[in-house]
């Protein structure tokens, strides 16, 4: 009986299954029907034209509703996996960079971040304009923004005890400082005292050295890593230009390097800066 709805996953459940609500009056400002600017839709009451809301959305009576229509037309299962996968990717990168075993603060998982991003767009808190670009890249930017916010949130802060240069004992109560687990290198403490030696510096040096150690014997990876470190290049096309290889080659090498780096975080004892058993990418 309900076979059509059950077999056709997302689209069948989208517009047609939504409540059809009928209005009898039309006081819709003509400007809104043309839907030229998003501002023309915001801050004004939308009164529909004697048809159901779903029908109104199908016609795209104004830009905001047009956006809702486009939201309904998507395959949300696939979009959800891609967005949550992106959040997971960013979270794992952050975990490698900070050395933290918990990628995200507040006990959130990447799918929670993806859900927050999607909801903020649907609720209108973040305005997506279909004419300015596709939805998925916009949602990825929202995920980046949420992760930035999480990284800077107070829940993700820790007290770092500064150790003295000699024995490792704390110098006193004033030697505690609050540092953010800043994943983008703009931590509060760093800004205040950028030149003070800290565990962060040692950790950064150690991580870089470990990565160099594991790519020993893999000249193509070493070449890319050298270009990043020596020339300060991060964009694949810039790295490609430096080493005279294709962007595709650089992308593949970066993926292998990243896999190695993540393995190092998972198994820190597997390879030390001074050498050790190589890890296969």
């Amino acid at each position, binding site marked *: 009986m309900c076979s059509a709805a059950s077999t056709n996953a997302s689209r069948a459940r989208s517009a047609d299954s939504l409540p059809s609500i009928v209005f009898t009056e039309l006081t819709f400002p003509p400007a809104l029907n043309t839907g030229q600017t998003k501002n023309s839709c915001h801050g004004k009451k939308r009164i529909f034209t004697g048809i159901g809301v779903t029908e109104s959305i199908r016609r795209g009576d104004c830009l905001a509703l047009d956006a809702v229509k486009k939201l309904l037309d998507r395959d949300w299962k696939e979009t959800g996996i891609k967005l949550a996968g992106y959040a997971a990717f960013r979270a794992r990168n952050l975990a490698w960079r900070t050395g933290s075993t918990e990628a995200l603060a507040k006990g959130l998982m990447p799918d929670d971040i993806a*859900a927050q991003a*999607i909801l903020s767009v649907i609720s209108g808190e973040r305005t997506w304009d279909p004419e300015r670009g596709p939805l998925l890249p916009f949602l990825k930017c929202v995920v980046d923004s949420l992760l930035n916010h999480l990284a800077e949130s107070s829940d993700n802060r820790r007290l770092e005890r500064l150790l003295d240069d000699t024995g490792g004992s704390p110098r006193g109560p004033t030697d505690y400082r609050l540092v953010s687990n800043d994943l983008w290198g703009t931590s509060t403490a760093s800004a205040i005292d950028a030149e003070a030696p800290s565990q962060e510096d040692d950790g950064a*040096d150690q991580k870089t050295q470990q990565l160099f150690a594991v790519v020993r014997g893999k000249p193509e990876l070493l070449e890319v890593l050298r270009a990043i470190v020596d020339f300060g290049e991060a964009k694949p096309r810039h790295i490609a230009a430096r080493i005279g290889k294709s962007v595709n080659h650089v992308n593949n090498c970066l993926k292998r390097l990243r896999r190695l780096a993540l393995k190092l975080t998972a198994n820190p004892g597997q390879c030390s800066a001074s050498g050790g058993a190589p890890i296969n990418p």
Partner: protein
Amino acid sequence: MKKNQQGSARRSLERIAESFDEISPEELDEAAEELRALGLDPSTVGDKLEQLVLKSIRGRMLREHSDALRARVRAQIGIDLTSKLN
């Protein structure tokens, strides 16, 4: 560690991390792989998000409906209904 070495180590790490960010997953199977690496089942995640989206869109549409009704009531406030009192 010398000061310039400290800065250099941090900068190098930042550049490496930035370069990793440049190769974000674009395809479905790459994204699914990232989720599996964190112990999440991609299909379950996709289903969960799909349900959430449809529920939220319904909520937004109902909100639009209620806004429209309110506007309609407000538009009728100015009508003289004294003739209806008897």
